[in-house]
C-alpha cells in the first residue's frame, strides 16, 4: 500500500514540471486568447461577449485570402521539403556507409546552430539587388543590370524549405533506419523492380516518418514569421504577419486573438484532412509496433 502511494507520488512529481509547462504556457494562454477573441469592444474598456471578430474575418476577403494563401504555400513547402528531404534521409539511413552516417546527420544539423534570423539575412545577402548572385551574374555577363531576387513567392518558398527541411529529414532517417535491408532484397528477389520496391515497400514503411515530418513541417511553416517577412517583404502576405499587425500595429487584441485561434483551428483542420486523405492515423506516427 505504502509502496503504491510512493509510486504515485513519484509519478506525480515527475509529471509536475511537464503539466505546469503545458498548463501555464500552452493551455492557459490559448484559453485566454480564445476568451479575448470572443469579446466585442463597445466603448473604451467596455466589452461584451460576441462573435463579431469572427464575422469581421469572414466578411473581409483579404483576411481569409491571406489565411488560405498561407495554407496553400505551407502545403507546397511541405511537399517540396518531403521531395528534397526523402532522398537525403534515404541516403543517410540506407546507402551511406555505417561509419559516416552520424557525421552526415550532424552535417544536416549544422544550420540549426545559427539562428533563424541570421540564416534569413544570409539569404538576403545572397539574393538582394546588390547581392552576391546578382553581382556574379552581372560579372559573367548573363544579365545587364542588377536583378532583385528578393520579395517574391519563389524566394519565400525556397527560404522556408531551407529552414524546415531538417525537420523532415530527422523523422525520416529514424524510420528508415529501422527498416531491415533484407526487406528491400526480398522485394527485389520476388521480382520487384526498383520502382516497385520503392513504391510498395519503402514508402509504406516510411509512412509514419513521412506523416510525422509533414505535420511538423506544415505547422512550422504556417506559423513561421521571420522568413516570410524578411524574404517576402510586404508581398509575402503571410497570416502570422496579419496577427502581428493586429496585436502590435493596430493594438486590436480582439482581432489578433481571433486570427490566432483561426490559424490554429485551420492548420489543425488541414492536418486532420491530410491524415484522412492518406488514410493515416496520428497514433501510428508516434507509436510503432
Amino acid at each position, binding site marked *: 500500500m505504502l509502496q503504491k502511494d510512493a509510486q504515485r507520488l513519484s509519478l506525480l512529481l515527475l509529471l509536475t514540471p511537464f503539466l505546469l509547462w503545458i498548463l501555464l504556457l500552452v493551455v492557459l494562454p490559448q484559453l485566454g486568447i480564445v476568451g479575448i477573441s470572443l469579446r466585442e469592444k463597445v466603448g473604451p474598456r467596455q466589452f461584451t461577449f460576441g462573435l463579431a471578430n469572427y464575422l469581421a474575418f469572414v466578411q473581409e476577403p483579404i483576411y481569409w485570402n491571406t489565411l488560405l494563401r498561407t495554407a496553400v504555400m505551407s502545403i507546397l513547402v511541405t511537399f517540396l521539403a518531403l521531395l528534397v528531404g526523402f532522398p537525403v534521409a534515404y541516403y543517410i539511413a540506407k546507402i551511406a556507409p555505417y561509419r559516416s552516417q552520424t557525421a552526415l546527420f550532424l552535417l544536416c544539423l549544422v544550420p540549426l546552430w545559427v539562428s533563424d534570423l541570421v540564416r534569413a539575412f544570409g539569404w538576403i545577402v545572397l539574393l538582394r539587388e546588390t547581392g552576391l548572385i546578382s553581382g556574379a551574374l552581372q560579372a559573367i555577363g548573363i544579365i545587364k543590370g542588377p536583378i532583385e531576387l528578393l520579395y517574391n513567392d519563389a524566394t519565400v518558398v525556397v527560404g522556408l524549405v531551407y529552414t524546415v527541411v531538417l525537420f523532415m529529414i530527422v523523422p525520416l532517417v529514424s524510420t528508415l533506419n529501422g527498416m531491415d535491408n533484407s526487406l528491400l532484397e526480398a522485394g527485389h528477389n520476388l521480382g520487384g*523492380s526498383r520502382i516497385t520496391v520503392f513504391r510498395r515497400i519503402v514508402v509504406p514503411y516510411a509512412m509514419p516518418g513521412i506523416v510525422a515530418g509533414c505535420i511538423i513541417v506544415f505547422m512550422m511553416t504556417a506559423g513561421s514569421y521571420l522568413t516570410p517577412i524578411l524574404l517576402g517583404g510586404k508581398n509575402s502576405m503571410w497570416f502570422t504577419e496579419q496577427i502581428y499587425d493586429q496585436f502590435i500595429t493596430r493594438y486590436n487584441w480582439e482581432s489578433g486573438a481571433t486570427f490566432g485561434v483561426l490559424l490554429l483551428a485551420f492548420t489543425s483542420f488541414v492536418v486532420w484532412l491530410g491524415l484522412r486523405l492518406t488514410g493515416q492515423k496520428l497514433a501510428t506516427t508516434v507509436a510503432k509496433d
Partner: protein
Amino acid sequence: MYDLQCENLTKRFGAFTAVDGVSLEIPGGSFFSILGPSGCGKTTLMRMIAGFEDPSSGDIKIKGRSVLGSPPNKRNVKMVFQHLALFPMMNVGENIAYGLRCRGASKADITRKVGAVLERIGLPDVAQKQIHQLSGGQKQRIAIARCMVLEPDVLLLDEPLGALDLKLRERMKIELKLLQHQFDTTFLYITHDQSEALVMSDHVAVMNAGKFEQIGTPQELYHNPRTAFVAGFVGDSNRWHGKVNRISNGEAEIVTSGGDTIVANCGASALSPGDSAEIFVRPDCIAFGGVRRETQNTLTGTVDSLLFNGANSRALVRIDSRELIEVAINGVDRSSPIKPGDPAHLNWAFADTQCFPAKER
C-alpha cells in the same frame, strides 16, 4: 539436367576471399545443403546465386543458362531470408501476392494461386491476418509460400530456422523436408547446424574458409569424412592427436599424446610414418565390452559420469591415460548397468577410426 550449377565461383572483398573457387551441381528436385561455420562464405555464395553480389570470377547457371548478367528480380531463384523479411505493411495474402503482382498476373489468377498455396502449406484461413498475428512457425511457412507461389527453379533458404526455439526448430526440419517433397522444387539450404543439414538434405556440401571440403550424402559425410574438418564438424567425435608409427594396408598405427596405441583407417589420407595425425572416433561406434578381437582398438578406464539425454545419452569415460572419452550408451534401457566409478573396457573397430594429417601448428 541440373537446376543450379556453379563453376569455379570466387568472390573477393578487397584482399579477403570470401568464396574461393566453389563448384557445385544440384540436380532437379533435390534438397541440397551447404553446411559450414559462420564466416565460411556460405551466405556470400547464396547472395551471389540470388544476384545480390556479383562474383569476382566463375559462372552461375540456372537450368543450364548463365544468369550472371541478370539482376536479382529477373532470376527465377527465390530466397527465404534469415529473418524471413515478410513485409510488415502488408497482410499475409498481400505478402504472397506481391511477387505475382510484380509479374503482372491477373486479379483472378492471383486470388486462385494465393488460395492454392495457402492450402498447400496447411494455413488456408490466414490470408487476411497481419504478419505480427502469426506464430513463428506460421511465419516460416508463409515466407516459403511467398516464394513457392512463383514456382522458382531453385529456392534458397538462408538459415531460416535460426530464429526459432528448439522444439519448433525440430518440427520445422521435418516440415521443410515434407514441403520440399510436396513442391518438388530444388531447395538450397544454408546452415551452420549440422543436424539440420543431415536430417533434411539429399546432399550436403561442407564449406570451410570459402572452399568446399566435401560434397556427399549425409551418410557419406558421417561415415567417410574426407578431411579432418568434415570429421570434426559433422556429428560428434572423440579426437586425439598422435604420431604415426607404422602404416600397412591402409591402416595406420598411431601413438597418441597420452601414450595409447590406436589403429586407424587412413584410407586416402596422405600419411607416412613419423607424421603427426588427428584421430576421430564417433561416440556411437564405441562399445563397452571385454572381448578383444583382431580388428579392434581397446582402451580401459573408469566411467567418470553419465550424460543422460534419452536415446542420445553418453557416458564420459576417463581412460587410463587421463583423457576423457564420450561413449554412446543406451539411455532408454533402464536396466543399464553402467554407473559412475565402474571400470570400463572400450572397444571399437579399426574401420570406424578415421585419421587425417594434423594441421601444422
